[in-house]
């Protein structure tokens, strides 16, 4: 499990878990689970496009994440948030289907892109993932106060002079960065589990933002590490364990909350 060919998996997955834990805290706070699902899934066509055109996969993912941010915020001018998100998803995936149909050699890659392929991580991926992750974390920390204020009480945020539209755009941007970091590692469908599961449990466990944020990162790390270990031992896909453990996190947090004091809403 700790053989040298596994070193890349542990390193990259650890970085991804930290970023997802931090960004996930705000995903839960802002009720943005759908956006957290759609941005990664909508970025996966970027990888397919890169495969058709022969470009860099990560570059394609970054480009489509950015497109997703623009697309969702443009559609939000006309529609409710979730409808806008759903429409963007449809458009992005339609493009993805088209690109996929253009390359025949891609069928195996699709599975890896959607559900993750932790064990085949190349060393060349470590540096870009580290850079993207660092930018995502820095951006979140810089935006920490306005994001928190805007998420907890939009009226207060407005009064403090942080424009709602700008905050939402900035948040989607951070989410896109997190997507680009995590997608090549845990897959388009599993980035999402990692964003929502640990953070939702953390919120049940503490009312204080900084404590909850730390707990979110800890749980996220625990989820990823156990998923890799279990996947290594059973040979089952790592995405399965990430998804199920995310569910376990949430259920445990909820049960604990039901037993203990209920935070006021």
């Amino acid at each position, binding site marked *: 499990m700790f053989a040298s060919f596994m070193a890349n998996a542990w390193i990259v997955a650890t970085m991804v878990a930290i970023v997802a834990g931090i960004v996930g805290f705000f995903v*839960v706070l802002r*009720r943005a*689970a*759908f956006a*957290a*699902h759609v941005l990664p*899934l909508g970025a996966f066509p970027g990888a397919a496009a890169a495969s058709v055109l022969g470009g860099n996969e990560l570059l394609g993912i970054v480009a489509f994440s950015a497109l997703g941010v623009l697309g969702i915020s443009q559609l939000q001018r*006309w*529609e*409710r948030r*979730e*409808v806008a*998100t*759903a*429409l963007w*998803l*449809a*458009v992005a*995936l*339609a*493009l993805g*289907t*088209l690109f*996929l*149909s253009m390359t025949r050699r891609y*069928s195996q890659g*699709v*599975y890896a892109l*959607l*559900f993750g392929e932790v064990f085949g991580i190349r060393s060349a991926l470590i540096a870009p993932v580290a850079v993207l992750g660092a930018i995502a974390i820095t951006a979140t920390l810089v935006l920490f106060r306005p994001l928190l204020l805007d998420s907890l009480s939009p009226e207060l945020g407005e009064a403090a002079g942080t424009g709602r539209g700008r905050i939402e755009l900035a948040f989607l941007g951070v989410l896109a960065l997190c997507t680009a970091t995590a997608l090549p590692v845990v897959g388009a*469908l*599993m980035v*999402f*589990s990692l964003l*929502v*599961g640990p953070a*939702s449990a953390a919120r049940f466990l503490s009312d204080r933002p900084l404590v909850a944020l730390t707990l979110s990162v800890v749980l996220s790390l625990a989820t990823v590490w156990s998923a890799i270990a279990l996947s290594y031992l059973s040979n*089952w*896909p790592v*995405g*399965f*364990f*990430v*998804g*199920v453990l*995310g*569910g376990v996190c*949430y*259920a445990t947090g909820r049960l604990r909350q039901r037993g203990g004091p209920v935070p006021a*809403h």
Partner: protein
Amino acid sequence: MRLLGLMFAPGFFSNAPVHTALLVGGGAAVVSAVVGVFTVMRGQSFAGHALADVSSAGGAASYLLGLNPLVGFLGMAALAAGGMEWADVRDARERDLLTGVMLGAGLGLTALFLYFAAVTGSATGAAITVLFGSMFTIPASIVPVALAIAVAALAAIAAIYRPLLVSAVSEDLAQAQGTRVRLIGLVHGSALAFAVALSAMTVGAILSTALLIGPAAAGLRLADRPGRSLAIAVLTGLIATWGGILLAYDSYYWTPGRGWPVSFFIVVLVFLAYLLAGLLARVRLRGVRLAAAQPSGCGQH
């Protein structure tokens, strides 16, 4: 005649897989459009999408076990919809989270089943078929079952039309009128599961959201009255689906030997219809404003 020949590539009307695709796809489009209007009004777009994705676990399982895929998709969608209604979470944030966690767990199961299918070699390319659909490979034996499901879902919606509409606009108002809001939610949830399972079969689990939300959003943008919104949504869904099938069939002749995916054309048509609806709505709004600005008989406002 020449023009018709250009529009419909040879054999379009005599091709059996095309017939099946037109029937099942049409049924899926109509049901999705009708259910979708209420889903958008109730603010359950995310839940609708989550159901579709979770149902793909059932689709993958049925590939693994050699079952009829419709059974798998429908079973899993019904299970998930039932679970969500049973949990009965009112708080919007909590519902968002629960939906998300369920979605994650469901996709995890999909990953596992697809992995088993690949390992046992029982289905090659199952991942693409389950997630992105394959309209032209639907077995003809499915048609009666698929249409029966479509009719059942439409009948369920028709039976609760009034109270469903009221509770979509205001749950409190519906409650004040003596409507059993939970029952309405349950029926709508079941119809949603039916619609999603059907369209997951045709355009694929991931893209069924396009058929559910796209036409409904277009209808709601263009018309103020629910009846008209429904009609526009159904028309949009049908035209996009049938048009998509036609274009995909024709595309075999554009790029010899390789067709373009049906799902791509359907979604593009749906999205174009949505943009067009927005444009028309804006033009009409401007017309109304102009009419209001015209000096009328009474002079003062």
